[in-house]
């Protein structure tokens, strides 16, 4: 049941991303709400739901993108795993807004690098007819990061709402009366 709720949340976020932010571009960039959503899941300690969310978000974006299939899914899974390992093994205290901004910066860099590398590999193997050069990613990165950074808190609210909803659902299913 919780996975169905995750899928619905991803669909709603993707719909908002396409419906609202596609016409509110900043220097030609739109935010990646799914990436932020997955990142918050990945930063949860001792929780592996982020793999499902990353896979679903990646598959959705792979279908919507014009690049070779699998690039976004691989990037989401890898960045999610890395963020999860960081949160579990390196982060001593709870994450705050300063460290979250740095995590977002590092994860976006890794995300773009994996995307570029996958598309480059697909191009070299003849699976894809074109790929965007690294300069394209680097020129778009600053606007992309700032736009994502500005939407961190709204997506965090969405994430806490979904987590709370799923936890309440689990509690009620177990029959615990509050």
């Amino acid at each position, binding site marked *: 049941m919780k996975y169905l709720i995750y899928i619905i949340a991803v*669909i*709603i976020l*993707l*719909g*908002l991303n*396409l*419906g*609202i932010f*596609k*016409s*509110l571009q900043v220097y030609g960039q739109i935010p990646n709400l799914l990436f932020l959503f997955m990142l918050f899941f990945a930063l949860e300690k001792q929780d*592996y739901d982020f*793999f499902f969310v*990353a*896979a679903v978000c*990646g*598959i*959705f974006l792979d*279908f*919507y993108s014009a690049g070779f*299939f*699998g690039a976004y*899914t*691989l990037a989401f*899974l890898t960045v999610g*795993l890395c963020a*999860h*390992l960081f949160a579990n093994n390196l982060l001593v205290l709870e994450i705050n807004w300063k460290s979250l901004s740095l995590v977002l910066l590092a994860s976006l860099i890794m995300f773009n690098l994996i995307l570029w590398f996958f598309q480059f590999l697909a191009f070299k193997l003849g*699976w894809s007819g074109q790929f965007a050069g690294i300069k394209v990613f680097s020129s778009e990165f600053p606007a992309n990061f700032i736009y994502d950074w500005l939407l961190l808190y709204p997506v965090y609210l969405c994430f806490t709402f979904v987590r709370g909803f799923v936890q309440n659902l689990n509690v009620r299913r177990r029959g615990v009366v509050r």
Partner: protein
Amino acid sequence: MRFIYTKAFAIFAGCLALLALLVIMQLKGWLDPIRIAFLDAPRPVAALANSAASPVKNFFSTIYQLKKISDENGRLRAEVKQLEQALVGQDQQTRENQALRDELGFAKNTQLNLASCAVLSDNPFGQTDALVLNCGTKDGVGEGQAVISQGYLVGKIIYAGPGSSTALLITAADFSTDARVSQTDAAALVKGSFGSGVILDQVKQTDDLQKGWLVVSAGINAKIPKNILIGQVSDILSSDNDLFKRAALISPIDFDNLQFVFVVKD
């Protein structure tokens, strides 16, 4: 090494295997039905979000455009002023063109030796009914020569300098020249009248004179050739008891807006 034995790595490896399977299915084209479902799923939410965001977007877009609209407005105003000025110049050129055509239409058919001149200004030195022309002695213009426009006598040169000359109009009070009535060949005198245009005077009482008859130059003055149209009799001013017959003449020439004239050279 310990990481590969963790649950996280196991799930990650499982996801990678699933991804590889999906990539193979995509290459085979088996993912197309699923692809359609994935693409259609967020559409209702996207449509709803778009319809909700459109008014906000239009509002901010309008505000953002305001400065551009204001700048464009200023630029267009300046352009309109420039075009209006160009239009005034063009209207002036059109009038000059028409005046030249009218003059050239006469000049083409005449055998007179003409010097074409442009009117520089009127009322020089405080004189009324006089014109300054842009041709002078170097163009063959001399004092006493007739000034004509569209075949009608408009005045005579009273002063000729090297590069410019002054012409006295036939409507000037101190203008006079010999004339004759075209229909009867009766001799007469044409003089200007302050505020009254052109007067035909000194026609004998025995000579017939009627409205509508043409009056031309007599050619007695050597510098003003004969048979140059002066005007048409519009009104008989004298009575049978007067010594001579007098009449008012009208000319089709607009003396207030002359731009180009010809001087009849010797």
